[in-house]
């Protein structure tokens, strides 16, 4: 079974799974995907991104157009194949856990 990803890593990879995003875009996507429950701070986001880039799970995306903000260019990030594999592995692990939890609840007569 794959190692569990930390919550920040999981949410960042999940946000990048649907397309290239810049840092603030990742924060907004994480907030949207979690229905407002998970707010990634900027320090946590960029620290985690740095580690993901170092480990080859995320890469800087080539610039496709004039993406600028405040006169400064925005960096976009892209999930790599290694990152996608790690995300898929963790999703499978969570599905397995969820299945086990449902069986347990059904056995205890809690689930309806």
């Amino acid at each position, binding site marked *: 079974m794959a190692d569990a990803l*930390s919550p920040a890593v999981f949410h960042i990879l999940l946000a990048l799974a649907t397309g290239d995003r810049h840092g603030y875009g990742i924060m907004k996507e994480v907030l949207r995907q979690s229905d407002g429950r998970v707010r990634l701070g900027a320090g946590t986001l960029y620290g985690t991104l740095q580690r993901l880039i170092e480990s080859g799970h995320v890469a800087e995306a080539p610039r496709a157009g004039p993406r600028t903000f405040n006169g*400064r260019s925005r960096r976009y990030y892209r999930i790599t194949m290694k990152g996608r594999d790690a995300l898929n592995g963790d999703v499978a692990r969570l599905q397995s856990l969820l299945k086990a939890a449902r069986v347990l609840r059904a056995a205890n007569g809690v689930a309806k």
Partner: protein
Amino acid sequence: MIAWGAAVYDVLVRLYPFEFRRTFSEELQDDFMVASCEASDAGGAAALCGFWARAFADFVVSLVREWLRTPWVPILLLAAAVSVTVFMFTALTVSSLPVRFPVRPPGERNGEALKLIVVMTVGVLIPICGTILGSLWMFAFRRRTASRRRGPHV
């Protein structure tokens, strides 16, 4: 008010380690500015203060985390331990020496000032030199192992 908060945040960002700051400081500042504007537009001053409180909490946590990733913390801790040990050992050894120092300043009994100079020289300069050499060694070590990659499961 937003500009004031952004100015404070710019100062705080400078407290991050150099490498992290060099890579992400512009993005951190831009994101803070955009998020401040959005919070202010959405809920006024109360929402803005709430965002600032969350941003500050995240800043403190990430600041500690990023500094712990640098080689400086273990080096400084080691240097502090070595400094205290060497200083205490030198002070105890020199103060218990039965011999008198050959040069005695006028008005001093048993060369107490010279003893102090010896203690300070050995007990302070050696740890400082050790810290500098240790830092240089750590940088060389990190350069050699730069190709080693860490996983994200931390």
